[in-house]
């Protein structure tokens, strides 16, 4: 290879650096306002579901609430326990936020609005969103607080357990579409969105994504009545708000991923025929559906116990996710009609719901066993 060929990519490098940098800065601004809106929206929606009004005082209908909160959080003293590990404690904020932010780079908002058109973007999104548990472990270990350590350990256990059904559900999608690129998966759904052919995969994704976001009913690592806030307990002021910011960014990322992979993203219906404005509308509308679901689940479901949480991932979600992969493979290899996929996957989804419903209805005997058979005294976790 000659020297000109080797040097070729470096010639127009400054322009591409500037273009990418400008796009990322624009994305940062949009993200900040989107998160501020999400905090306001969550409070309003949850309040309405509980027959309250929510914030009403700051501005008309309380729309300035998020700005007031920001000012308050920036101007609040942030404390660090004297016995905390300073490196782990401080770096945890970066370790949680940066992966969530990086994920936005590979998100195709419309056909052309994507910062980095990487070929393996689905794999990238899954890999990057799975990184946050390192930050939780750092925060839990670094805080030198028993609740923080409990919360950090629980967060790590939960995040890695629910990572697997999430990935397996995505593998089902990759099998059908023969692509690991989110853009190609969206284009594949120009006639019918994939939720029709993969209802079981969709159900698994929906549950696992709520667990990955640590939102109710899967908020065991941060449950205030159990571990008093978990890893966030020693964080205050701006560091705490960085954790909250990250959780909302993650919520947007998972809502967008679900919208792209199961609901047809910017393509279905007629996305490519009409234009980018309509495509952006489709993306945002489908993303909002997921976000409303995440808020709705917060008001509707009671929190799980930690043993129920782990059993649900390993004994229900993973076997059913493997079943979905098997069904996809059978239909694709033996050229069965697509309707077979809809019927079998739908039946399996119903079976999963029925199984969980039955398990919930059974009179719980576990707490009695926990009382009679306590853990060794030395392990607090």
């Amino acid at each position, binding site marked *: 290879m000659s020297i000109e060929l*080797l040097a070729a*990519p470096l010639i127009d490098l400054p322009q*591409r650096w500037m273009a*990418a*940098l400008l*796009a*990322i800065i624009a994305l940062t601004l949009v993200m900040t306002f989107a998160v501020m809106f999400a905090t306001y929206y969550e409070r309003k929606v949850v309040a309405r579901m509980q027959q309250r009004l929510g914030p009403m005082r700051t501005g008309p209908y309380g729309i300035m609430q998020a700005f007031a909160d920001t000012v308050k959080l*920036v*101007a*609040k003293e*942030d404390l660090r*326990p*004297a*016995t905390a590990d300073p490196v782990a404690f401080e770096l945890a904020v*970066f370790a949680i*936020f*940066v992966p969530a*932010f*990086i994920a936005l*780079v*590979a998100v195709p908002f419309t056909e052309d609005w994507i910062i*980095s*058109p*990487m*070929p393996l973007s689905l794999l990238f999104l899954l890999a990057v969103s799975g990184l946050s548990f390192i930050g939780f472990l750092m925060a839990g270990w670094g*805080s*030198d*607080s*028993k*609740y*923080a350590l409990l919360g950090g*350990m629980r967060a790590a*256990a939960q995040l*890695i357990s629910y990572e*697997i059904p999430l990935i397996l559900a995505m593998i089902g999608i*990759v*099998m059908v579409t*023969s*692509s*690991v*690129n989110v853009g190609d998966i969206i284009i594949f759904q120009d006639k019918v969105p994939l939720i029709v052919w993969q209802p079981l995969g969709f159900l698994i994704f929906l549950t696992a994504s709520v667990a990955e976001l640590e939102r109710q009913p899967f908020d065991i690592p941060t449950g205030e009545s159990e571990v*008093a806030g978990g890893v966030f307990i*020693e964080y205050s002021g*701006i*560091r705490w*708000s*960085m954790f909250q910011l990250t959780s909302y960014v993650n919520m947007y990322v998972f809502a967008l991923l679900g919208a792209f992979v199961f609901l047809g993203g910017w393509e279905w219906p007629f996305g490519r025929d009409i234009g980018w404005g309509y495509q952006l509308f489709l993306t945002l509308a489908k993303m909002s559906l997921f976000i409303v679901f995440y808020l709705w689940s917060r008001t509707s479901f009671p929190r799980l116990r930690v*043993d129920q949480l*782990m*059993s649900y991932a390993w004994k229900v979600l*993973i*076997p059913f996710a493997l079943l979905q*992969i098997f069904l996809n*493979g*059978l239909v*694709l*290899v*033996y050229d069965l009609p697509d309707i077979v996929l809809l019927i079998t996957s739908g039946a399996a989804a119903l079976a999963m719901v029925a199984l969980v419903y039955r398990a919930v209805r059974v009179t719980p005997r576990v707490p009695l066993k926990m009382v009679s058979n306590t853990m060794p005294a030395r*392990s*607090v976790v």
Partner: protein
Amino acid sequence: MDSGSGVLCRFEHDCCAVRAGEDRLPFQTLLDNWLAVFLAAIVGFILVATALIAARVLAPYSKERGKGISYECGMLPIGRARAQIHIRYYLFAILFLIFDVEAVFLFPWAATFAAAGKAAFWEMVLFIGILGAGLGYAWKKGVLQWNK
């Protein structure tokens, strides 16, 4: 690099080269794709650092011994928090590792198996079946039982 000879070439042919619109070198597409990720990591880092510095400037700060004590329901904490951790976390981490490695194998297979035919499918069923049997064994042995 001829297209269609392997998984990587396939993806490159399908996405990168077509998207870029010309016959770019592999190194060039790699640079295009990861440049933005690299920049986003830097911008994200600066964003958090800016927020922390802004708070350092704006927020009040008063030194008091009570503020340095970690929270334990309002009482003075008893002992250090760096306690031993139950073995079950380790077992779940090992199980996760097994399935995560499986997922790494599954992704390239899932993208190409439809073209490779029945043999590729049943081989992977065998592979997943062995792992499933392992999960069943762990289940039977009570590894998945949180409180025993």
